[in-house]
């Protein structure tokens, strides 16, 4: 079997991917929305930026869990890499990188959701410094995993990370300048660091997806 012949002309891979994706998405969304209701969090009463943050956190966490589940099977991971049902199994390095990326995504989601849900649940007083300490530890852990990915990555992955960072910096630096100018002129009302962070992460995610799409398997 060669990779030349391994492309999936019948779209079998895409059909399976769509079914698995939709099913996993529906199950995860149902569990999450049920949990929100259980804790009395009303989505309709939330600010739009918090709903956006909630969606981002949920998507990151779900993608992380899906990546971790896929990398439990070398065969399934190989299929996911080549996007063809007859692809060879993933190598040990590919599995390691997939798992590390899964952990980064899961942590990103959890870190995003923690302050948001704590705020929605009305957490205050002595609990908040402790929660912040947990967030700091989680962030340091995620940074460590990101460094591990960089160390194990080959040159294409490093190039993609570098390009995503460059595009994000370029776009966000420009956006920051324009927003600051508009605020100085009284044309834009002040916004919180939380709002800026959610928008920043959103732009980074879009840049990351766009750059990954350019070099994906075909």
């Amino acid at each position: 079997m060669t990779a030349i012949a391994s492309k999936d002309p019948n779209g079998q891979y895409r059909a399976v991917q769509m079914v698995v994706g939709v099913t996993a998405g529906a199950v995860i969304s149902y569990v999450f929305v049920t949990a929100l209701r259980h804790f009395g969090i009303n989505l309709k009463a939330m600010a739009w930026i918090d709903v956006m943050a909630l969606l981002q956190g949920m998507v990151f966490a779900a993608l992380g869990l899906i990546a971790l589940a896929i990398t439990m099977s070398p065969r399934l991971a190989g299929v996911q890499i080549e996007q063809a049902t007859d692809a060879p199994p993933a190598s040990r390095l590919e599995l390691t990188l997939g798992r590390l990326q899964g952990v980064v995504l899961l942590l990103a989601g959890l870190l995003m959701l923690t302050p948001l849900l704590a705020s929605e649940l009305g957490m205050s007083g002595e609990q908040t410094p402790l929660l912040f300490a947990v967030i700091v530890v989680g962030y340091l852990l995620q940074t460590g995993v990101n460094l591990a990915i960089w160390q194990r990555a080959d040159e294409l992955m490093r190039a993609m990370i570098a390009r995503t960072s460059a595009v994000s910096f370029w776009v966000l630096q420009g956006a920051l300048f324009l927003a600051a100018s508009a605020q100085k002129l009284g044309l834009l009302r002040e916004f919180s660091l939380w709002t800026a962070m959610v928008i920043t992460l959103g732009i980074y995610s879009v840049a990351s997806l766009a750059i990954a799409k350019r070099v994906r398997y075909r």
Partner: protein
Amino acid sequence: MRNRLHMLRAENRWTQADLAERLGVSRQTVNAIETEKYDPSLELAFRIAALFGQPIEELFTPDHRGE
């Protein structure tokens, strides 16, 4: 940059995974080079040339050649 990687790999009956393992890179990298979405570093280009026993200019040609 244009390249002949896909053809040379097919001649050797290697999968992208086989070639990736020999080069010490991921198969995404092999795929991206073959589909000319990514130009390899000079170091990787030399490794590819050495693997196929050909001069580097026989494998990679600039887009603007002949213009």
